[in-house]
């Protein structure tokens, strides 16, 4: 029990794992490649989180502070693991900053990468300034500047949110559902309507997957209280007539082609596997599953066991995941590491 646990990544899952370990007196080291902790919610500047409505900087910021105040957690930022070797209970990781960390076990909390909308050029991102991503709108809201058209700063009168951008699309090799975008989008639609009551918000969908209790808290609420409109259509292309963005597609419910003018188009971007996953797989010797996420080898014995004994995985490194489930997985992985350490000792 002398060596610490190595936690790769300081997002919601990593912060939760580190907190759990520290709170039972187990030392751990967080290695974060960016220069600060918090993961996507902090680094990408998310606004209010689902399902609590708390601001990301308060909710996740609180988790960061809690971990930074723990005596048993040491944090290394701006570094990655370049070399890794050993057996369960006795691993050594060499870091890009030249240091080496001895570890008893590893929890990979390396997260995901936002889909880059440039890879769907027909939807106008990168061509028209008023075509933006959900991440950009999150930033407009969290910065306090409000939702404005980037081209000229005007308040949009009509906004289209396109779902499944970078998800459920064999054309670009992304066949998974990113799981959270429907809920995030209906939440965002309500935030836009709240800030700009005269702005009409349309969501173009193939299916609405606001799973579980999000059905009423987000989907129904957005329709019933905020009059957000949902149109069943996968948009064909986004162009411009010089003044407005023109959204083209088929309204499948009335079997009619549509070419509707909008002030702003928002891509509900999906969750890609972390672009570093091939390198992470190579370094740590863990398998990736078919979509490129880190494979969870066992499901029912312990939480997040990868293909390599002693290395665990939690959060959106395993596939598209919500923030609260990532946190739960981080905590559960810490428990798996502790119980496995006990077994090693008694063996």
């Amino acid at each position: 029990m002398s060596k610490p646990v190595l936690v790769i990544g300081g997002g919601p899952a990593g912060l939760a794992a580190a907190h759990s370990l520290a709170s039972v007196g187990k030392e751990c080291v967080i290695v974060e490649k960016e220069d600060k902790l918090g993961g996507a919610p902090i680094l990408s500047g998310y606004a209010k989180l689902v399902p609590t409505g708390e601001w990301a900087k308060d909710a996740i910021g609180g988790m960061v502070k809690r971990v930074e105040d723990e005596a048993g957690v040491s944090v290394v930022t701006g570094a990655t693991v370049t070399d890794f070797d050993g057996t369960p209970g006795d691993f050594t990781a060499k870091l890009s900053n030249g240091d080496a960390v001895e570890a008893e076990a590893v929890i990979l909390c390396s997260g995901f990468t936002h889909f880059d909308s440039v890879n769907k050029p027909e939807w106008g991102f990168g061509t028209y300034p008023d075509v933006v991503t959900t991440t950009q709108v999150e930033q407009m809201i969290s910065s306090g500047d409000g939702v404005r058209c980037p081209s000229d700063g005007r308040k949009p009168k009509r906004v289209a949110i396109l779902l499944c951008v970078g998800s459920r699309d064999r054309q670009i090799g992304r066949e998974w559902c990113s799981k959270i975008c429907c809920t995030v989008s209906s939440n965002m639609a309500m935030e836009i309507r709240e800030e700009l009551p005269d702005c009409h918000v349309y969501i173009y969908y193939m299916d609405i997957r606001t799973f579980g209790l999000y059905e009423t808290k987000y989907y129904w609420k957005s329709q019933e209280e905020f009059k957000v409109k949902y149109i069943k259509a996968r948009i064909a292309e986004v162009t411009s007539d010089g003044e407005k963005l023109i959204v083209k597609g088929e309204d499948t419910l009335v079997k009619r082609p549509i070419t509707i003018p909008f002030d702003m188009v928002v891509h509900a971007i999906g969750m890609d596997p972390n672009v570093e996953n091939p390198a992470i797989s190579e370094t740590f010797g863990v398998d990736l599953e078919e979509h490129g996420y880190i494979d969870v080898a066992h499901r029912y014995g312990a939480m997040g066991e990868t293909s390599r004994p002693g290395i665990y995985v939690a959060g959106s490194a395993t596939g598209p995941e919500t923030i609260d489930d990532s946190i739960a997985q981080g905590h559960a992985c810490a428990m798996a590491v502790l119980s496995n350490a006990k077994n090693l000792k008694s063996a």
Partner: protein
Amino acid sequence: MPIHEKSLIRPENLTTHDELVLDGVDVSGHWSTFIETRVVKDYNESMEEEIAALPGGEHIHRCWQCGSCTNSCTVNAINPDFNPRYWIYLIRMGYESELLRDKDIIWQCVSCNKCTYACPRDVFPEGVMKATAHWLEKKGHTTKSPSMHFDEVFTEQIVKTGKIEESRTIRRFFSRTGQALMQPWMVEMVKRMLKGLPVSLLTRMGLATLFAPRTSDWSRASAALEEYIDEQEEKQAQALSLAELVETAKQDVAA
């Protein structure tokens, strides 16, 4: 075009030119048949707001197009063109011209309320049908339906006297809908009543026809009802921008 979509082509959307030359090529006759585009070029957001402002239409924005209303519909079983789900969608997106194509069947809802109990989102489609029929009337797209005349005759009488005197109701209803009072079934009914009913009852009925029965102390209630109805009508007229409509019509006439 796939065969199952040929039904989308409407005869009125076809145009043929007897004489037509395009880029130097003679395409006269059926070669020059064109189909008018079905592309929806814009949404009209005010339409949903207008229907929602009428009694019964308040919950239209809840609809998620599952089709439970149409599937449970009594009238749809007889006439497949009677499709509440579809109309709700047209209203929500503001496809007005498309809705107007069905203006002569929308009022046919029999208010059986099967849709009310089938709807998983409590849209109250029956109410929406009622609101839509009223919207069509108020906007001048349809003439007043017989049932609307009946409702008005009935309501006017209640507001005025607090009571319903059936013979008065039926006489006024016939008169407003342009029907003859002396209808064979009516004559037959009165004959049999005269024959079968006790004299005392007939006397009371006769008196009621001459002197309309009134609820005692009704005037204050009547005034309150009238005030409320006026208020509601004013609100609806505003929501539907009826004053503007009248104004534009006046200007059109003047021009």
